[in-house]
């Protein structure tokens, strides 16, 4: 008894000397929604989960694939419908249990279950089977060349732990259900949960038994995470040294933060594009002053509106240079993006007026623009700027800006005729954009397509993408779809967002395009 105590004390002393304890105080606007790793498919939730849980494959801070719990993966040579994953050996969960193929099978099935919010990403998976303790096979319905990119936020849980704690089923967040797994964690990740009070404070500490102890810097030994909603308060906390790292620095405060002693701002393009959508599908729209017809149904009107938007002015003044004007609704990270299409937007007020005249709207019309005011960088200010620009060609815009909780339902329920939306592409592939924004609205696809656009031919091409194994052929189809989208001016692209992280000088990190810091990569000096 005494001996153990002595040993424990010695061990504790040893760790205290070995690692210099570095606490990272981290703040961002919102909190994680739940600790259950499969219950919500949402950025801040995944970001927190990534510190404690791990997927088979992760994206590193530059967005590139990196082996995590799988060491390598490839489709089977003789059967392209099967992906083989070799698992990392000697990995343990925080509670000491070994990580094996059985846990992968359990986790994938859990993430595919009805309550899971991740199941859409795993639609193509028919079966997951353990070949041996450290090999897993994923069987898909037809070849799925982009399966790995769907797995980077898919976290592995311990089967035994979930069963013992009544957490086999995914927490049903929507029903307000509370499970053991929604407030406790047991992952393989570099950090362990110490305490958590949702929306107030979450504390994590270093996992001493992490498999990657020698592979990553792991300079941060403790993480204190505080969501701070009010932008001014958040910046004040960084400026006064109360936090070391904030993820969302308002663009107007970048200079102030950068000029403050001991603070730096790091910037990188984000995998997110901002654009306007227009209801072109309806015969007559509700929120305009034109009776009996829909001005937005005319492609000339849509083009004229796009030409009226001065993207450079928005970039310079509203975004203070922190954006990249866009000509298509795909960020440059995405397969299918081309520089030519992305620079297609031209501002020409006179030509726009001529187009309006040609379409029979020389006197203009009035319409309501629905805009979020708490979702994207300076969203409301961008919309406001657009109101002024569209007024130049006679389009009178009534701006209705509201919180995202009230804005997004308008789009998904088809209750808006002119709206702002931003789209991130976690799979880095155009198919994801087409599925949600271009395909005819239906039960499986097109849920975020608020334009009412429906083109059966195009839909067929979009559906074909998911099972096309010939990458060249697939890319050609993607290009063909984009050509139609551009030609039809389906959306009015504005810009690609830029991420700005503000941090104390001692914090060393790259800015990840997904806005998800993984603290094991951070250095502190």
């Amino acid at each position, binding site marked *: 008894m005494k001996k153990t105590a002595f040993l424990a004390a010695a061990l504790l002393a040893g760790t205290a000397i070995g690692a210099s304890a570095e606490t990272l105080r981290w703040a961002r606007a919102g909190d994680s929604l739940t600790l259950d790793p499969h219950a919500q498919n949402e950025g801040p939730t995944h970001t927190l989960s990534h510190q404690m849980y791990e997927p088979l494959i992760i994206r590193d801070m530059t967005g590139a694939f990196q082996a995590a719990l799988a060491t390598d993966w490839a489709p089977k040579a003789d059967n392209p419908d099967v992906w083989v994953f070799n698992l990392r050996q000697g990995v343990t969960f925080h509670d000491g249990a070994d990580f094996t193929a059985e846990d992968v099978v359990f986790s994938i099935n859990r993430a595919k279950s009805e309550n899971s919010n991740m199941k859409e990403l795993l639609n193509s998976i028919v079966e997951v089977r353990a070949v041996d303790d450290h090999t897993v096979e994923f069987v898909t319905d037809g070849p799925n060349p982009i399966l790995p990119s769907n797995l980077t936020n898919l976290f592995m849980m311990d089967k035994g732990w979930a069963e013992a704690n009544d957490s086999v089923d995914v927490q049903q967040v*929507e*029903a*307000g*259900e509370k499970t053991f797994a929604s407030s406790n964690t047991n992952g393989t990740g570099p950090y362990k949960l110490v305490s958590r009070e949702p929306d107030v404070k979450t504390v994590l500490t270093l996992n001493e038994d992490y498999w990657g102890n020698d592979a990553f810097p792991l300079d941060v030994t403790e993480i204190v995470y505080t969501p*701070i909603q009010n932008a001014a308060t958040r910046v004040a906390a960084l400026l006064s*040294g109360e936090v070391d790292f904030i993820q969302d620095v308002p663009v107007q405060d970048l200079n102030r933060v950068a000029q403050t002693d001991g603070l730096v701002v790091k910037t990188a393009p984000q995998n997110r594009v901002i654009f306007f959508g227009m209801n072109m599908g309806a015969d007559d729209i509700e929120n305009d002053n034109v009776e009996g017809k829909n001005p937005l149904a005319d492609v000339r009107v849509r083009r004229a509106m796009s030409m009226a938007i001065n993207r450079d002015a928005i970039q310079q003044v509203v975004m203070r240079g922190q954006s990249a004007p866009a000509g298509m609704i795909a960020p440059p990270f995405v397969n299918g993006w081309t520089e030519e299409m992305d620079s297609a937007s031209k501002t020409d007020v006179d030509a726009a007026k001529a187009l309006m005249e040609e379409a029979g709207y020389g006197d203009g019309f009035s319409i309501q623009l629905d805009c979020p005011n*708490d979702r994207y960088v300076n969203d409301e200010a961008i919309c406001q700027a657009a109101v002024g620009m569209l007024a130049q060609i006679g389009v009178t815009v009534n701006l209705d800006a509201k919180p*995202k909780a009230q804005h997004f339902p308008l789009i998904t329920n088809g209750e808006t005729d002119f709206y702002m939306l931003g789209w991130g592409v976690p799979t880095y592939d155009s198919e994801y954009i087409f599925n949600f924004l271009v395909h005819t609205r239906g039960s499986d696809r097109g*849920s975020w397509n608020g334009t009412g656009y429906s083109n059966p031919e195009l839909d067929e091409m979009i559906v074909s993408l998911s099972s096309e194994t010939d990458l060249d052929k697939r890319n050609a189809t993607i290009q063909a779809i984009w050509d139609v989208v551009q030609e039809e001016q389906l959306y009015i692209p504005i810009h690609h967002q830029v991420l700005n992280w503000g941090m104390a000088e001692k914090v060393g990190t790259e800015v990840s395009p997904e806005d998800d810091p993984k603290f094991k990569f951070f250095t502190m000096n």
Partner: protein
Amino acid sequence: MLAYIIRRVFQSALVLLVVGLVAFSMFSFVGDPVDNMLGQERTQADIERLRETLGLDQPFVVQYWRFLEQAAQGNFGLSYRQGRPVAEILVERLPATLELAFVSGLMALFGGIALGIFTAIRRRGVSANIIMTASLIGVSLPTFLIGILLIYLFSVELGWLPSFGRGEVTRIGNWTTGFLTTSGLKALILPAITLGLYQMTLIMRLVRTEMLEVLRMDYIRFARARGIREKSVNFRHALKNTLVPVITITGLQLGSIIAFAIITETVFQWPGVGLLFINAIQFVDIPVMAAYLMMISVMFVGINLIVDMLYFAIDPRLRADRTAGGH
């Protein structure tokens, strides 16, 4: 007396019922929770399933009745946002708000009384007039701006006080307190000033007015004439008679301090029920909103009831013809 109390309690219950109805009807207008609860990649089928689970497909009256039934048993359901019982979250967040309200209430009360007496006694003095005017500056700016200006001055420029949160808190049973640590006490200062400033001005002006009234009364004049020292006249005789209305108003204000903590808590990221409420609105977390409104209502109606009964007990004139609660 008993009949009166029963009648008042009955009326209060009715008030709560109405508040519940108004609160509940408001929710159908603030947004649709379903869209926020499901991720970017959800299907129409997911939405239908969820609406059914939440009972949102039921008619309004049915939803309200279910809410009342549960609320009567102290069950406000589970938060859509946090997936925990609302009652549990409220209990967890309440200490932060109550401590903030307590400190700003105390500040308002003592600061208000002291300044009120001072400005009443030195009615025509220069410093009293400066205080009176300065106090008006505090109520002539919106609370959120005062909060942000305080943060700018004391956190960013001077670096003296923290800009957000409660600092380090100590847990005692179910209660968390910031009173026992230096960082907790420091964190209280700016939010308490922001929240208490308005009430302090109010109390100060009330005390001044009452004091001036009382000082003109005959018995005070007699006291002076009898040669009782000025200090004694001011404090032992005048102040005593001033305090009754002051305490009444303070009681009534306590409820509104808690309600108006919404803005202060938003600016300072103070983890109390006000911030919880604002978060709930943004997320359309209906059970939390409903519970919060009911809680505030119970508090207000309760305070109102107590004040009314105290009046009844203290002032015999009111038994025949009761006058208003406020003054």
